[in-house]
């Protein structure tokens, strides 16, 4: 396991590298293409089932019949390679932390992270005495959307995912350096 680099992680706005990223100057056609691409990305964010604890059950409930994440185009994938959104649902422990980082690195750009629940946000109820609990998954990977709650209701998760979609829609993948 590679201990390097974790402390120096300074997640500003990171560089999401796709096939066509940042290769174009701004003009009308590129702008339209930009919009098309970001529409595609925001409409079809496949999520990686990364459930660790209690929140995983609510994530499943959100994907199941009553709440049905597929309505907003979210399809579960079990391999990180094919996923766009990693929903970190649940507590991440020290033993798991480096693996979370590895899984994140295995995902293909553009990739997004939703920290679901207070454990993934900050350590949740375990933040004070939890010697083995990572106090927030943003210590090891960058997070786009935080969904509070212990556990968040499926509605809250859907709200968070809609926020993420908004964020993706505002992106201009082809001309990020201009934006």
């Amino acid at each position: 396991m590679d201990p390097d680099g974790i402390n120096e992680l300074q997640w500003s706005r990171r560089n999401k590298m796709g096939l066509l990223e940042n290769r174009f100057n701004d003009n009308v056609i590129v702008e339209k293409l930009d919009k098309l691409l970001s529409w595609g990305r925001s409409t079809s964010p496949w999520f990686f089932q990364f459930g660790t604890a209690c929140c995983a059950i609510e994530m499943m409930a959100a994907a199941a019949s009553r709440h049905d994440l597929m309505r907003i185009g979210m399809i579960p994938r079990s391999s990180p390679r094919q996923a766009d959104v990693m929903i970190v649902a649940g507590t991440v422990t020290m033993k798991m932390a480096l693996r979370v980082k590895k899984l994140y690195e295995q995902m293909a750009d553009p990739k997004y992270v939703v920290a679901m629940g207070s454990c993934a946000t900050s350590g949740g109820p375990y933040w004070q005495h939890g010697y083995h609990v990572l106090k927030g998954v943003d210590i090891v990977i960058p997070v786009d959307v935080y969904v509070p709650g212990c556990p968040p209701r499926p509605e809250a998760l859907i709200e968070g995912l809609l926020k993420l979609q908004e964020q993706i829609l505002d992106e201009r993948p082809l001309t990020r350096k201009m934006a």
Partner: protein
Amino acid sequence: MGVVHGEEMVLNIGPQHPATHGVLRLQVRTDGEVVSEVTPYLGYLHRCFEKHCENVTYEQVIPFTDRCDYLASMTNNFGYVVAMEGLMDIKVNERVEHIRVIMAELQRIASHLLGLGAFGLDIGAFTPFLHMLRDRERILDLFEMTCGARLLYNYMWVGGLSHDLPVGFVESTYRFLDYFEPKIDEFVKLLVHNKIFVERTADVGRLPQDVAISYGVSGPNLRASGQKWDLRKDDPYSIYDRFEFDIPVGEGGKGSVGDCWDRFYVRVLEMKESIKILRQALSSLPKEGDVYQSLPKKIRPPIGSIYKRTESPRGDLGYYIESDGTNIPYRLKMRSPAFTALSVIDEIAAGWLLSDVLAILGSLDIVLGEIDR
């Protein structure tokens, strides 16, 4: 795992894998598809439950018990409050007892639904899983109208409950039972007697009775091996001795006693028994009674210790509580049924094919939150 010979391959299942029900890592040694050894590695969800218990007051332990077995929070609360009331010698009134039993049995159904669905998912049947979740939502609705939470309730308190039943709860529960009973039969048709499902589970991963006892396997897993052991009958707590219900045991309906199919079917039958208990408890629920009646002003149990077991959906859930007379537990240990159930995996999964190992894992119905605590 030592030396790897010739054709053998060491394969890591997990910690992030769709079939591990959370973050469990199984290291399997395989020769082609045949698995010769399974070594579980735990602790990827070790959330320091016991350390927390030594740092928070007795009341504050309850939310942490919720989060241990997050599929059966009600029964986890139940076990803890039963143990605490034993330690402090508190008697709660009839209404509280009835509500507790109702909640515990609803929780048992909810937990079994998810466990069975996830088992089906491991075998490759995706649809029954979602049907199960759909029906589970209705139970969660009942919990939600009672205490406002869907998953982690913090509902049972030492000496009482956090809320009384809301108006219309009893009717809603009856409505749910009427809806749910035929659904079990539908589920049985869809999956339990499905030819492919039977082929995949019958005779697979047989767990003999003595091995099960030696490994401390309990609950439905033990009953599937033919041992008629249910704490609700054999060591009755709360008011379980008043209700009439059967303890389903594995009979080897499709293969031999103690196989995956038995473990599956026992859970299906248990849901039916829970419905029986629910109907009795609902009909005998006293109208009067204050749920805060015996709440102690301060929880300071006398010096001493207690080990109390209750029947959670996964088996014997034990709490060992050591009190030093203050308002903070000196030591609190949770004996989790899933922990003991998982320990048997190498014994019963070795020699089977890779797909079977995952089926056997699914049939044990483990919850990682409770294993790692």
